[in-house]
């Protein structure tokens, strides 16, 4: 069976996508703190899924002769939502670290934050901030 250039292209993109998905999850499992763990899934795994979707986008018109824009929608949606998800998770983590709500020992992230530089404090802590010695809710 001879493989055409399109098949080789699709296969290469698929293998790259699988590799990136694996590396992202490996980073999630191996990194020491949450702020470092955020990097793997939000960037590398998104790229891996994007590669799979690109492969699908080439495969269906080239092999089956059918075209659909669904892959483009999924890719666009994933690339739009990944940073928002990461931001929300980081904010929730900062909040819980600052209030001492997690059972795990502190990773020191909330105390080593730089000044926000606009005169007021960090918006994540605004309003509801109490001393870490307060009993958790």
């Amino acid at each position, binding site marked *: 069976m001879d493989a055409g250039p399109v098949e080789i292209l699709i296969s290469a993109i698929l293998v790259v*996508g699988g590799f990136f998905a694996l590396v992202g999850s490996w980073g*999630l499992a191996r990194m020491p703190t949450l702020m470092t763990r955020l990097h793997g899934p939000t960037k590398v795994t998104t790229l891996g899924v994007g590669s799979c979707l690109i492969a699908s986008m080439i*495969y269906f018109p080239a092999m089956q002769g059918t075209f659909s824009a669904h892959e483009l929608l999924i890719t666009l949606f994933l690339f739009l939502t990944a940073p928002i998800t990461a931001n929300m998770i980081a904010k929730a983590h900062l909040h819980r670290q600052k209030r001492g709500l997690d059972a795990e020992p502190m990773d020191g992230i909330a105390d080593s934050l730089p000044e926000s530089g606009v005169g007021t404090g960090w918006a994540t802590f605004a309003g509801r901030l109490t001393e870490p010695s307060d009993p958790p809710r």
Partner: protein
Amino acid sequence: MIEIAVLFTISCVGLAMALNLWRLAKGPTQADRILALDTMTINAIALMVLMQIQQGSAVYFEAALLLAMVGFVGTVAYCKFLLRGDIIE
């Protein structure tokens, strides 16, 4: 050739989901568990797309799109709950 590449990618994504599951069970913080669940959703989307290429049918696109949307909304809702103790204020 594509068959072998798809099989390789499916095994990679399956292994990635196993690693996500390990992180989901281990934690240690709540944010870790949200992150692991979100990554599992993204990997499930990849698995659906790969299954389509393997079977040559295009019936799972709506499911993948729905999973992307619901996964995002669920993650944001859980983060919002951790941040404010409430989802819709």
